[in-house]
């Protein structure tokens, strides 16, 4: 497992091209672009989200 390329900054995980932050409500709309895509969800255990509201509920728990 390669770990050397990962660093942290202000509770974020940083790689050479990415920043990984805690999932926030602001992410819901963007996340729907993935979770609402049937092809992207093809291998998940549940169907694509039908609308952004469902994704928003997921993010808020």
């Amino acid at each position, binding site marked *: 497992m390669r*770990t050397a390329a990962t660093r942290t900054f202000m509770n974020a*995980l940083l790689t050479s091209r*990415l*920043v*990984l*932050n*805690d999932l926030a409500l602001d*992410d819901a709309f963007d996340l729907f672009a993935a979770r609402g895509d049937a092809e992207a*969800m093809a291998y998940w255990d549940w169907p694509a989200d039908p609308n952004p509201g469902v994704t928003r509920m997921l993010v808020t728990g």
Partner: protein
Amino acid sequence: MIARSVRRSREVLDTTSSFDRTFVGLCDLSELRPEKSADLGFMLMRRHWGQGLAQEAVTAVLAFAQQLGLRSAHARVHEDNERSVRLLERTGLCGYAVRSASRGSGLECFVTVAASRECCERLNGAAAQRETLIWLAPVKWADRSLPRDCESLLSTLFRALRSSDPSGRRHRVLATVDAADIRGLGTAQTVVRRGAALALGTDVSMLLMSITSSRILHLAAMPPA
């Protein structure tokens, strides 16, 4: 669950202020068992596929999991999801091809992290000695709705293996059970025994093997050759 949004950074790490915050996807750890294990999940928006970004995110989250003190992480992958299987293998995980009768059946491919690589290599060695390994990783062994489904699928697997290879290859079933899940362990034992009995009409030899490095009990059953 620890869920991380994945966003693309414009520059390299040292210029953290330059993140343009283009949303890429999600990578998370769920089913967290402190100091033990977690389930790894990831998804990327389709336009970001094929650039190695998922691997980068997964690598970062697995490193984070190690920092949390987790000893193993599991990723469940459907066998026909070749892109994700390759990704996990490239990330250093040990993978096993497992047939899955249908999605949502409760049995899925199982991948375990390098923490138990020694165990995996030993099992791979066994596989090379004309054994076929089947790993069972139900979402929850203790779930009462699973046993009948598991038994049926296991039975189907045994029949298929026997018919495809009548030369007497030995088949080993490994069911991963959390060491603390006593009820799940009992369920796993029952499922493996009944599944083999359904297919073979006989009982199976069974052993419990404790893998201390990952704190996961591997329940192994080998039907007679």
